[in-house]
């Protein structure tokens, strides 16, 4: 072999080995540091401007807050605030701060810092997402009668006080630092775009454990930016990463095979997968099809014909829970335990269709005007579970004489049809619910909303039941009484179960992988999942 060719081959082999080695490497772990992957770069480290998950996680790990929602009980717990009070009218909130609080740089944290942070969040120029929760942020008045008291006067009572203040990080007044100076457990110390975000323990963090030891236990956190699930799993199995949140059922099976003690199925998540029919009156569909889709009996019959337990068992390898409403049983505070929903029965579904004039001729179902019942179900390509569910629903509905075609579209094309052209018959998609409070779903349920998917942007509610949903959702959004809110949301859940504008299919389960080397983890399905009690999580002594 010529020498030149030989040296080229050796060079190519070395490069290939280097590429293989580099592709599976994570940055070196520091002693006591936790490490896991996030899938993209945080858009910002400014806690007031957070509007996506990666930035939200960094804010959670670094930002000190007045109240923190306990992700297991869903109850607010005081943090920087020692105590708080909300007046019965819900228009005045008073926080009493802990004494001796300090920022990570050692400067004292007082009510002036809290007021500054709140005013910054409320200022229109900041464009903070959480400001919308105050309903009329410009009318909110923040007062500081003394160094440890903060008084917040609201023009309108707001709901979910705990959730709102869980999202407002307290920063040093007039010194926004993008996470470098914080009052939370960690501070941002290093960030390499596309590689990692490194957080270090805040030496002045206020919190201590029951024995008086300073928290957090971990010396730091390294968040690797890695958008490759297979590589993430491989690094987890090699012990480079400590956890993986939100595993898909397929990847769950891979990890379970190699490290069965690491995987955890926490049961139903807050997310839903649902099917709905296009009821938009101006949709470019034949009138007879619109009549089917606007017919409650038709929708209910379809719902009754779908074998949800099969969907959960087959499309999700058993890692999903059959769904009948928009609030998951995992959302203990808001789930309607007395919900009555259409039961699964093809015979009853057929009777219901017959009552509306539908009739069978051979294997085909026809409506009262003689049109064969044929329609398509859109879903997004690249989502294996949805594609499987669509194929199974196709067979379930075929048993009733409905001919269904499945159309997989890429997401932009799908959104174009759904939101802009309304040119579709039925759609199978999911909804990711990060927040358990139903207030977060106002844009889905109000009939005037452009996201009211089955019939968007109604000028006036098209039906009496939609008017009732509007009324109940507005009621729960405008009252401070938890009891009244719960009754209103229960009523909405029942209306949705009766009318089936969305035919709920499954709640995908929350699947996580947690290294056995970690201690102090209290798994929870609410975001940020397994690290919600980050203060108490650490690696075991001697863990590599």
């Amino acid at each position, binding site marked *: 072999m010529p020498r030149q060719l030989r040296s080229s081959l050796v060079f190519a082999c070395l490069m290939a080995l280097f590429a293989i080695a580099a592709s599976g490497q994570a940055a070196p772990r520091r002693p006591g540091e936790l490490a896991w992957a996030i899938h993209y770069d945080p858009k910002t480290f400014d806690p007031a401007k957070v509007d996506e998950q990666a930035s939200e996680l960094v804010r959670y790990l670094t930002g000190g807050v007045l109240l923190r929602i306990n992700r297991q009980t869903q109850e607010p717990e005081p943090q920087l605030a020692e105590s708080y009070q909300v007046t019965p009218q819900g228009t005045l909130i008073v926080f009493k701060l802990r004494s001796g609080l300090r920022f990570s740089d050692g400067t004292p944290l007082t009510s002036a810092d809290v007021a500054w942070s709140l005013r910054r969040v409320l200022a229109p120029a900041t464009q903070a997402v959480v400001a919308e929760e105050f309903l009329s942020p410009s009318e909110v008045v923040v007062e500081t009668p003394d160094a440890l008291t903060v008084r917040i006067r609201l023009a309108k009572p707001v709901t979910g006080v705990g959730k709102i203040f869980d999202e407002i990080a307290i920063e040093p007044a007039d010194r926004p630092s993008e996470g470098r100076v914080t009052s939370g457990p960690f501070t941002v110390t290093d960030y390499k775009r596309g590689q990692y975000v490194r957080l270090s323990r805040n030496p002045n963090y206020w919190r201590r454990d029951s024995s008086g030891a300073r928290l957090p236990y971990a010396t730091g956190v390294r968040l690797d930016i890695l958008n490759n699930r297979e590589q993430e799993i491989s690094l987890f199995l090699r012990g480079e990463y400590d956890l993986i949140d939100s595993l898909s059922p397929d990847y769950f099976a891979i990890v379970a095979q190699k490290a069965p003690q690491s995987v955890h199925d926490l049961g139903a998540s807050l997310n839903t997968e649902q099917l709905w029919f296009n009821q938009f009156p101006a949709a470019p569909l034949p009138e007879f099809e619109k009549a089917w889709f606007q017919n409650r009996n038709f929708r209910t019959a379809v719902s009754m014909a779908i074998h949800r337990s099969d969907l959960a068992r087959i499309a999700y390898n058993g890692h999903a829970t059959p769904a009948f409403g928009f609030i998951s049983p995992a959302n203990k505070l808001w789930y309607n335990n007395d919900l009555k929903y259409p039961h699964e029965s093809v015979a009853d579904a057929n009777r219901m269709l017959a009552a509306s004039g539908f009739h069978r001729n051979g294997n085909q179902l026809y409506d009262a005007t003689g049109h064969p019942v044929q329609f398509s179900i859109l879903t997004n390509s690249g989502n294996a579970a949805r*594609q499987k569910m669509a194929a199974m629903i196709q067979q379930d509905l075929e048993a009733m004489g409905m001919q269904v075609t499945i159309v*997989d579209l890429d997401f932009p094309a799908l959104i174009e049809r759904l939101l802009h052209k309304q040119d579709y018959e039925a759609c199978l998609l999911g909804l990711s619910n990060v927040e358990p409070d139903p207030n977060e779903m106002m844009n889905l349920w109000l009939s005037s909303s452009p996201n009211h998917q089955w019939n968007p942007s109604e000028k006036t509610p098209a039906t009496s039941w939609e008017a009732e949903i509007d009324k109940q959702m507005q009621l729960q959004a405008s009252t401070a009484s938890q009891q009244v809110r719960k009754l209103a949301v229960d009523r909405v859940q029942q209306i949705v179960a009766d009318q089936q504008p969305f035919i709920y299919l499954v709640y995908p389960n929350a699947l996580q992988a947690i290294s056995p080397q970690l201690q102090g983890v209290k798994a929870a399905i609410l975001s940020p999942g397994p690290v919600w009690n980050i203060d108490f999580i650490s690696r075991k002594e001697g863990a590599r």
Partner: protein
Amino acid sequence: MKKRIAAAILLALILGATLVVWLSPYNYAFQDRDAIMAPSTPQHWTGTDELGRDRTVRVAAALLIGLTGATAAAVITITIAASFGLLAAYSPSPVAAILMFLSDVFLSLPWLFLLMMARSLLPLTASPLQTAVTTFLVLAAFGWPACARAIYRGAAEFRSAEWMIQGHACGLKTRQLVRLHIVPHLRPLLLPQFLICVPAFIVAEANLGALGLGVGEPMPSWGAMLLELENSALLARSQWVYLPIALLVVVLLILESFTTEIDY
């Protein structure tokens, strides 16, 4: 000799696939929900897929659909290409230049995106059969320019051939010249073009299917079945997942052997 063996294998595959589809108690769409990812059994020779559908029947049906569709699409492509190439070859040179320019423009277009666009224009309620027919028609509609250029080159050389001059001298009309002389002379060119198109269309359909734009569910296609290979968890559960890709490679090799051993 090799060609005969290849033809025999291909014929055996087609015959076997036809028998499987015809005689099997299972329809390619039937979901046996109690036999998800079943292993090889006397009922399901090569097991079932993730929806409990018999893999043998689905692979056999995909083979028949793929071969039939690709062959039909290749016939259409060659017909369009031959018509276009001949028209350009026997037109005045400015017209020929424009026609070939059009063909080059068509050739330089990003065909995959065009295919995706054309395929997405289908009405949503198109049945799986309609989607299959449309997919192959679209492939045929986009596959002709490269062939047209080759045919144009070949046909242009015939203009000064002795038999052409003799034909003109004998008073043959253009139509007669095309039928009696030009097409027979072009056959050595058309046949390999046709044989190249068939595997190319099979692969193109597999690509479109892998993008979710091929043949609609539940009709089986190679593209849709190759999607299973994306799922590494599935690969660990059954080696039969590799059957579609193995069969695809065999079919492509057989078709390839026809083009390399063709007798001119």
